[in-house]
């Protein structure tokens, strides 16, 4: 059974014909242009891993943060748990989950969701609790129910902080997902790992991961600008 657990992807044995870019591990734009298509499916796997993990992580963190907002005692143990989870090296987390959830995207997603929590949960709880007492006092005094207070006042005002947490969580997830191949989930990391000494390969796969992180970051930042017009108003 030990062999069955082997998660490492079968290494591509490259044909090393003399004089080619590949055989010399070189950095060759020509090779990159010719071979871009081999990065398409790892990139898509990477995007899916990231979006699914962050999406599920967001939903979980949101639900728990709302609970912690109502019942204060919840936030301390949950916060401590998320920070311990964050401490575990991701490679170890992926590998330790394999015997429980098997090789494949599921295992990777379970671990990645865990890593998002520390940023998402913390920022949600902080965002909700940073709403000024005077604002809440005024809202209650005008007859907003607790539910209306949450949805019309506290959550909108927490949006910047929640989205800041989402940005960190997403960029971190893109980063950690490069190691998701340890859980047998592919991604750009698998592509790097298969040929780690080949410069062209490392540059393209690593570069795509960085670009992906930057793209997500900018998208969320743009969304945040749109969602919070009041923050751009000039102070009197």
């Amino acid at each position: 059974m030990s062999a069955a657990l082997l998660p490492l992807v079968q290494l591509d044995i490259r044909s090393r014909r003399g004089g080619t870019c590949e055989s010399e591990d070189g950095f060759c734009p020509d090779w990159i242009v010719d071979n871009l298509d081999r990065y398409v499916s790892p990139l898509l796997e990477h995007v899916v891993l990231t979006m699914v993990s962050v999406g599920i992580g967001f939903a979980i963190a949101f639900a728990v943060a709302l609970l912690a907002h109502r019942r204060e005692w919840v936030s301390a143990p949950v916060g401590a748990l998320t920070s311990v989870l964050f401490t575990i090296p991701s490679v170890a987390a992926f590998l330790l989950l394999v015997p429980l959830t098997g090789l494949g995207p599921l295992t990777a997603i379970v671990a990645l969701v865990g890593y998002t929590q520390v940023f998402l949960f913390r920022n949600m709880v902080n965002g909700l609790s940073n709403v000024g007492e005077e604002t809440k006092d005024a809202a209650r005094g005008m007859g907003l129910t607790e539910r209306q207070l949450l949805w019309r006042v506290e959550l909108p005002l927490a949006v910047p902080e929640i989205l800041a947490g989402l940005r960190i969580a997403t960029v971190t997830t893109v980063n950690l997902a490069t190691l998701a191949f340890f859980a047998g989930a592919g991604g750009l990391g698998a592509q790097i790992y298969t040929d780690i000494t080949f410069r062209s390969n490392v540059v393209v796969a690593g570069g795509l991961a960085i670009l992906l992180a930057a793209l997500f970051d900018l998208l969320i930042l743009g969304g945040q600008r749109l969602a919070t017009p009041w923050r751009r108003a000039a102070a009197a």
Partner: protein
Amino acid sequence: MADQHRQAAVVEFDHVTKRYDAPTGRDKGKPTPGAVNDLSMKVPAGKICILVGPSGCGKTTTMKMINRIIEPTSGTIRLQGEDVTGSPPDELRRRIGYVIQQVGLFPHLTIADNVATVPRLLRWDGSRTRARVDEMLDLVGMDPSIYRGRYPKELSGGQRQRVGVARALAADPPVMLMDEPFGAVDPIAREKLQNEFLRLQEDIGKTIVFVTHDIDEAIKMGDRIAVLRTGGKLAQYASPAELLMYPADEFVEDFVGADRALKRLALQRVRDIDLWTAATVRSGEPVAEARRKIAEADIDIPLVVDDHGRPQGWLSERGLAGERVRPELRSRAEPLVELDDVLRDALADLIESEVHYSPVVDPDGCLAGVLSLEVISQSLHVPPERARTSTELVEPAGDDAVSAEIEPA
């Protein structure tokens, strides 16, 4: 404008008590801050009732029990005869305006959306809400076309406070609660906001419960003042004049301050006090007739008036030398005090002009009496049942409105 909106409600406290857990440790034995002890009082409809007292005296607690932000331990609070616990807190609060010191505008909503908060909670339709928002912004002196779409961040402190008042008034609540509403702005802006608010209140005539720790603000703004002492006991509930003249005990006396007599001067108008009379003579009038009038008057110097009764000046002895009065003035009729002047300003005029008497004229400019330092001094010693203030003069008749007595506790 606002007569059709003019609705107000009586607020009654009936043996209301709020207890908090007793302080422990170092503070053991001290009174719990914010507690209220067996409070009974009635705020008449359409009046401004000020809750004032040192910090921790329970004034804010008292106010917040009206809209059930804080629930009393025992006792009943009634709004226009109806127990406030009779309806859910949220519904109750939508019928009560609420203004706090830090204003608490929603930073993520525009000014218009802020003002529209309660109308939307009450599901008013869009056009009615929009019209109301503009009306409210106009009412507090903010041009809707300029400010409607702005965010709170873009306003000054005073403007934010105005929007806070507009927001509180938006659904036309019969009662408004104001918690140190002008405490966070600078003294000059505060004075302006206070004056604006008093003018506004003349229009809207709401029942207002107003918390402050500033006795001067209380005297300026209040129709009725409830002084609370530490421990949440009502020390005195009276009109500003009564409070200044007859503080119930040493605590109230200390709290209103050593200069309470001077504060009273700022409160009473010349028309509120009994003026002296002076003989009025006209040029060419028989001297015998003039001397008869002089004998009847409170002061022995006659005033020369014109054909309309407007004072010209004080007559000299030589003017009475012949058969007929000759217009020989010893001095001009200055300073001229008006009936609507507050005593403080009138007194300042007297002192500044270094005169003993000053003619008082009515709005037409006709002589209404003579003011002197003695008159002012006497007015400070009138017994309470005769102490009047201008605000009480305009009080509408009606049992509910004027009976604002402290019920026996």
